[in-house]
């Protein structure tokens, strides 16, 4: 009997991994914007990576903090050294799920609202988040977008008192991730 259970378990695992479809994104765009009357911080990272499992809804997004590029060199230097401390915390990532993945039909073109739930790590601090997003399926291609606001203080990014009028604690993050079906070579 034990043997039967083990064999059926193995068969189930083999089948589920056979049908599990993973989508990957390598050139994901993540844009951060913080605006005050005195200073606009406008950074773009177009090398974010992501893996999406269309069966389980598991979602991972990862980027290198130094990959954020700014129009001003000075701002980029301060962003990395004084605020994000990218030497100590080189990555930011999200690990979680699309909670309502069952409502997304990957075989049918359309726009599907998604609920993103999981842990966001920025500046070495991990917080639970629950945000809305959208998956657009078009001709077999998958594009995921989401917009959210985060508080710098919540992730222990310190703004000096004298800069508080220039740097808003509230930062708008927008993501645009274009996925391709992953095929092992």
């Amino acid at each position: 009997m034990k043997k039967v259970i083990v064999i059926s378990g193995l068969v189930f695992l083999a089948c589920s991994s056979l049908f599990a479809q993973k989508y990957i994104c390598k050139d994901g765009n993540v844009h951060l914007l913080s605006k005050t009357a005195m200073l606009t911080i406008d950074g773009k990272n177009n090398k974010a990576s992501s893996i999406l499992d269309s069966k389980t809804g598991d979602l991972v997004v990862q980027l290198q903090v130094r990959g954020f590029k700014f129009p001003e060199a000075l701002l980029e230097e301060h962003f990395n050294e004084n605020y994000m401390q990218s030497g100590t915390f080189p990555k930011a990532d999200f690990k979680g799920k699309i909670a309502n993945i069952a409502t997304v039909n990957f075989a049918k073109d359309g726009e599907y609202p998604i609920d993103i739930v999981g842990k966001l790590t920025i500046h070495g601090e991990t917080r639970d988040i629950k945000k809305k997003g959208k998956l657009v399926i078009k001709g077999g291609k998958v594009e995921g977008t989401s917009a959210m606001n985060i508080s710098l203080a919540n992730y222990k990014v310190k703004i000096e008192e004298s800069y508080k009028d220039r740097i808003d604690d509230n930062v708008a993050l927008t993501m645009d991730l274009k996925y391709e079906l992953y095929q092992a070579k």
Partner: protein
Amino acid sequence: MNKYLKIFLIVFGVGLTLGLCGVYYVFHMPHRNLADEKPSIVTSAKGLFDDFSKDETIGNKKYGNKAIQVSGKVVDIKVTDKDATIVLADETSGVTCSFDSATVVDHKAEFQKIKVGYATSVRGQCDGLDMIQGVMLSRSVLVQ
């Protein structure tokens, strides 16, 4: 006008102009130019990836934010009007080098010559290890 007041105004005016120029320069100083920078470390794409995969923290300390020059075989190249990406050594366990639009525009002919399978050298700022793309270099330049 009082002679001293005149001198004071001239000195003040010159000082203010210089100060404003200084502030303007600091805010608009150019981005890091890897083409003019001597590489901190010269290595192979595989060697760079191996160092990071052995210990990412040590990899970041050794290479992070530095100008790294890597050589390797091109496994993927993507050039658009906006930017370019060259992957060296291996698609998932190699080095992904990204190039800014200005670099692509200035060296269009050189980018057109690069094909998958060719050996090439790239210098770029090391941003860290990515879960899919391997070691990431940004603001890259082609090394002749």
